[in-house]
């Protein structure tokens, strides 16, 4: 078996070059077909914003496929000089390629360790290749196994715990306070760019109403129109603060809009708890408002701090995740070896048994009358033992070589030596 992973990623390759080497959805089928025809191999291309990787495999490997060949192909496809591409390409072979894919799919090789997108991107890459007929038995088995690895890493370690994007973390924070949203009102203060994404996430919670207020009524109207909300005059800010449940503030005000004193007056009119997502810089709400009970305030400093803590926490789970990957890599290679070597070992065993029977058939008539039943059984047993000992060497060598991920040469040699049919 020949399996190779060749590509470049964010570790060493600048974004500019990665962008030029990326395979767009429209060009991907042609690239897969070209790889399949040119090298007679199975192919999967993983092309994301952080990496461009080619997974290539062949059952029989007359000539190796290496990074030089892939650099040539990339040159043809992307019109980027091979000399510029080649230094950025890394190459992982056999067991190394298996481990590499498992690390990628387990998001250990990601820019943000533990991010959840990569597993889906690997799945899409595999499905695309499958649709275009460039997936064979090796890559099918490998990518199916990779899915299991991703699942194990995510469920058995805490590597994927928590959300690191500001908007997702903010919504997660809201979910810790409220459980149903069809009776909740969201208030958007300001019209900052950062707020748009968070508001998009908040809208997914399907709140009862969205109110928008801004110093500029026109801007408030525009934001309200964009999110299906209602614009409220800036002068009514205190009134709406008193009756909304989730407050998203993104103004560009140089001073806090809501001081502790102002909030105290608002809170006296409130009945339920309030979640304040202050993602404005500088802050719109005085942080002293936060009590974690009636007023849960979170600002950009907190969200950045949460992200750092999540990433820090995820790093603790890298070692257990690596252990799972090593375990699964060994398991995959063992299973693959069993699948590949099983028929050859069965043929070898049958051949030895047939030869033993032939020799016994020739020998026994010559010793007729000179042997007791026990003597006959001893000879038969000795010959069986002899056969097993002969087989032990080749079978062990096959297993050993396959752990290193290159059992195919020996397999071929065995077939030729013992004249076994394919």
């Amino acid at each position: 078996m020949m399996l190779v992973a060749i590509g470049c990623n964010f570790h060493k390759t600048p974004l500019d070059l990665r962008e030029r080497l990326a395979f767009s959805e429209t060009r991907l089928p042609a690239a897969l077909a070209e790889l399949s025809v040119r090298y007679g191999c199975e192919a999967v291309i993983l092309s994301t914003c952080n990496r461009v990787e080619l997974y290539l495999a062949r059952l029989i490997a007359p000539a190796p496929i290496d990074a030089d060949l892939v650099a040539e192909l990339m040159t043809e496809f992307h019109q980027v000089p091979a000399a510029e591409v080649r230094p950025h390409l890394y190459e992982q072979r056999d067991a190394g390629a298996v481990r590499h894919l498992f690390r990628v799919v387990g998001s250990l090789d990601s820019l943000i360790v533990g991010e959840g997108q990569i597993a889906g991107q690997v799945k899409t890459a595999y499905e695309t290749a499958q649709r275009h007929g460039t997936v064979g038995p090796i890559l099918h088995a490998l990518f199916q196994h990779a899915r299991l690895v991703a699942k194990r890493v995510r469920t058995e370690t805490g590597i994927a715990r928590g959300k690191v994007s500001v908007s997702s973390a903010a919504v997660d924070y809201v979910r810790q306070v409220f459980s149903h949203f069809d009776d909740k009102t969201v208030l958007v203060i300001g019209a900052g760019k950062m707020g748009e994404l968070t508001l998009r996430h908040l809208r997914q919670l399907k709140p009862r109403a969205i109110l928008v207020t801004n110093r500029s009524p026109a801007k408030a109207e525009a934001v309200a129109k964009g999110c299906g909300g209602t614009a409220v005059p800036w002068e009514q800010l205190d009134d709406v603060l008193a009756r909304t449940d989730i407050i998203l503030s993104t103004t560009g005000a140089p001073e806090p809009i809501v001081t502790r004193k102002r909030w105290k007056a608002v809170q006296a009119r409130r009945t339920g708890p309030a979640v304040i997502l202050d993602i404005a810089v500088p802050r719109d709400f005085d942080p002293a408002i936060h009590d974690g009970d009636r007023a849960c305030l979170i600002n950009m400093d907190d969200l950045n701090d949460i992200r750092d803590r999540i990433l820090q926490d995820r790093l603790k789970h890298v070692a257990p995740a690596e252990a799972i990957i090593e375990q699964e890599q060994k398991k995959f290679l063992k299973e693959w070896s069993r699948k590949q070597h099983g028929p050859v070992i069965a043929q070898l065993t049958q051949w030895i048994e047939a030869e033993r029977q032939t020799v016994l058939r020739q020998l026994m008539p010559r010793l007729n009358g000179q042997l007791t039943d026990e003597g006959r059984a001893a000879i038969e047993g000795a010959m069986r033992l002899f056969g097993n000992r002969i087989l032990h060497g080749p079978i062990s060598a096959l297993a050993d070589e396959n752990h290193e991920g290159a059992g195919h040469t020996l397999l071929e040699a065995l077939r030729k030596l013992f004249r076994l049919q394919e």
Partner: protein
Amino acid sequence: MLEGISRFCFGASYAVALILELIQLIWPRPVQRLTATGFGIAGLLAHTAYLAVQRPPLSSQFGTLLLLAWILAIFYVYGSIHYRKMAWGIFVLPVVLGLVLLTYSFPPDESSHTTIIPALDSLRGERFWSFIHGGLLFLAAVGVCIGFVSSVMYLVQARRLRAKVPPGQGMRLLSLERLEEMNRRAINLAFPLLTGGVLVGIALMFQRGEAWDWTDPRAIGGTILWLVFALLLYLRYGVHLRGRRLAQLTIVAFALLVFALASSHTPVQGGSP
């Protein structure tokens, strides 16, 4: 074979489930939570078999505590199946275990080794009202226990929010809103039951010609418990008090319940109210 089941059997199962839940906090693994739930279910089955075979009377503290622990064990199993990813057991199991351990302070009542709940035809006259009295108080106790558990969870969640612990890190809990709702329902249910139970008890006492004894710990415990409950409801609906304060007060109510349970017994089969 079922006769061999002891309190230790199900107590130990609940303890193992609790230990696994605690380990889950540090080293989360789905199989671990599943095993914890398995131990919880095993404990509940053993607990059920014990109640069915031994039939401790509800008129004794021993029987009341065991039945209360059994209902909370059902609450635990339901919660750990329904809220698989939440740290549910960490809060419910200590209460279950605490109640089981408390039964060791009260020997089983061998004399009334008949049934947890008496046969319907034997419930006539005063026995019927005694049964109603005990039953109402028992159901109110279930409500207080659930209110207590949700209040502790509320305080922990509020503390996490106050410290701005990243969501998903450490123990996972229900939202403040859900916990407050659970607390409100439990207390709203428990108060009328408690009031009914106390009123039936007072009526029974007057019928027997007994005088109200203010030095009796049962009377003190019961009265304070009722007053705390009335205060809880007043603060919630009259003053619109919410959140942390209300949770703290519910915990006080639970402490009083434990005191009341330890100092008196609920007369289902004719004991004094």
